[in-house]
């Protein structure tokens, strides 16, 4: 256990000094600053005002950019480290492969989750200072969703990094995975498929399997309780799960998917050549 935390801490320190982390933090911090600067906290859309409105916009933007950010930075740094000889040296030290792999994943999770969370927390605190009403329920719900999304795409990133033998291939694969999930969002390919006569069960299954769609549905659920904006699949899903059931699914499913991908990645890592 000690070695796991040592590795996690080493990965955190490595990441904090990396350029990608500066850009990553600046993007999410910048989004919050811009949302305030453009007066979003004073606007009203679909009944949401103040900080609630700001948080909803923030989470929508996060959904658009967080997955690709997490995927690309994970595969670049992990596969890049392997190419640069970091694995060769670090894995010549007497550390178990499980401590190394899961320690890196744990460290990386904290590094990708905390900037997004801190930016959201900062927005909340600033809003409180300004005397706005604090939407705690929304804050905790979105925190859980962000945590789930980060873990999910980190797991997918670790799997890709393990399977791809070079950082170029890993980056290409990460981009294709993200693009595929994007295409199967309700409003794009899934909509076309439904129009072309896809069976409702298949459409619903595709929407349930795609973590981006799950996250999107979950974020919109609060201000569009009937999910009218999302079209037929979301409606069917809501009918099956119910509101509370879907919220639980939206948080747990991406965590399970990320864990499953990371486990497959670990098995491949353990059985393959390390550097």
């Amino acid at each position: 256990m000690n070695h796991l935390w040592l590795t996690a801490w080493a990965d955190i320190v490595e990441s904090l000094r990396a350029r990608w982390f500066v850009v990553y933090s600046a993007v999410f911090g910048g989004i919050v600053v811009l949302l305030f600067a453009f007066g979003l906290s004073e606007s009203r859309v679909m009944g949401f005002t103040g900080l609630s409105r700001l948080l909803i916009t923030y989470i929508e933007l996060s959904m658009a950019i967080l997955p690709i950010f997490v995927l690309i930075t994970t595969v670049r740094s992990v596969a890049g480290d392997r190419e640069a000889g970091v694995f060769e040296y670090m894995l010549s030290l007497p550390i178990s492969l499980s401590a190394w792999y899961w320690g890196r994943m744990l460290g990386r999770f904290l590094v990708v989750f905390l900037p997004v969370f801190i930016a959201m927390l900062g927005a909340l605190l600033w809003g409180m200072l300004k005397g706005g009403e604090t939407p705690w329920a929304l804050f905790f719900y979105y925190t859980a969703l962000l945590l789930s999304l980060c873990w999910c795409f980190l797991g997918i990133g670790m799997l890709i990094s393990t399977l791809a033998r070079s950082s170029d291939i890993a980056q290409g694969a990460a981009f294709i995975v993200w693009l595929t999930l994007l295409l199967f969002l309700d409003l794009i390919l899934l909509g076309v498929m439904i129009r072309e006569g896809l069976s409702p069960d298949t459409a619903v299954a595709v929407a349930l399997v795609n973590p981006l769609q799950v996250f999107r549905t979950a974020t919109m659920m609060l201000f569009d309780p009937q999910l009218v904006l999302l079209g037929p699949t979301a409606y069917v899903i809501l009918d099956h799960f119910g509101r509370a059931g879907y919220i639980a699914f939206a948080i747990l499913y991406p965590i399970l998917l990320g864990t499953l991908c990371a486990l497959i990645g670990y098995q491949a890592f353990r059985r393959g050549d390390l550097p």
Partner: protein
Amino acid sequence: MIRFDHVIKRFRRNQVLKGIDLEIQRGQRVALVGSNGAGKTTLIRCLLGEYHCEGEVRIDGLDPRAHRREVLSRIGFVPQLPPPLRMPVGQLIGFAASLCGSDPARIILVAGQLGFDATGFHHQPFVKLSGGQKQKLLIAIALGRDAELLVMDEPAANLDPEARHILFKLLAEKQDDAAMLISSHRLDEVAALVNRVVEMDQGRIVLDDEVADTVDLSSRLACRVRMTRAEDAFARALGAWGFAAEADDPLSWRGHVPGPDRLRFLGMLSRYAALLAGLEMREETDDGDNKDAA
């Protein structure tokens, strides 16, 4: 201590190791030489359990892959290229010491002996150190623990003559208790360090020979070189070995050469043979007195 039994390593269709059989006993210092692509690095990675391979690799009867921690806790490894780690020097030392069950102070002490003040660079990212400083720190991590096997890929390549001398002395202290596997492209780089040479070519061992083991690893030669005329390139080459011109005779240069480095030094001098007017080399004892003329 180490046994490779018909080890084959393939990368897809490319067979990089073609049935390696090799045994290395404790106390043996083996030079693993060969050109690029000969299979040296792949063999070392199989030994460290980093690659899966056909055949058997055993260290004291243990499979390095199946018994990673037991096996690797006995191995000190110095890679040819330092990894681009961003973590600070202090953290790297703490990390390695904690994994190896060693004392960070011991690593810092060895680094100090090699001429690298690890305490002064405690907060400096490893990647920002110079090539020589990185090499010294990695050597200190490998030697600052109770390793029974030292695996080093061109360990002295980036070191100045003084640090090379200290490295040779440190290796001399370990030579009876540990086995050493020292990889290099060129035999003259490591010849005086070893008592056995294994040459690889195209994934096979093409030469496995014992060599005379008469050079004291900790010895040092006091040298005086006299030039026929002043020549900048020759002066720079001597300066790189830590030599300085005599005050009253700028054509005469004095300095020290680590005993095991004498072949390298003579190799350097041979490039300027036409400029050599005289050469004296005397082995020094530990207290600085000159012994027999060499």
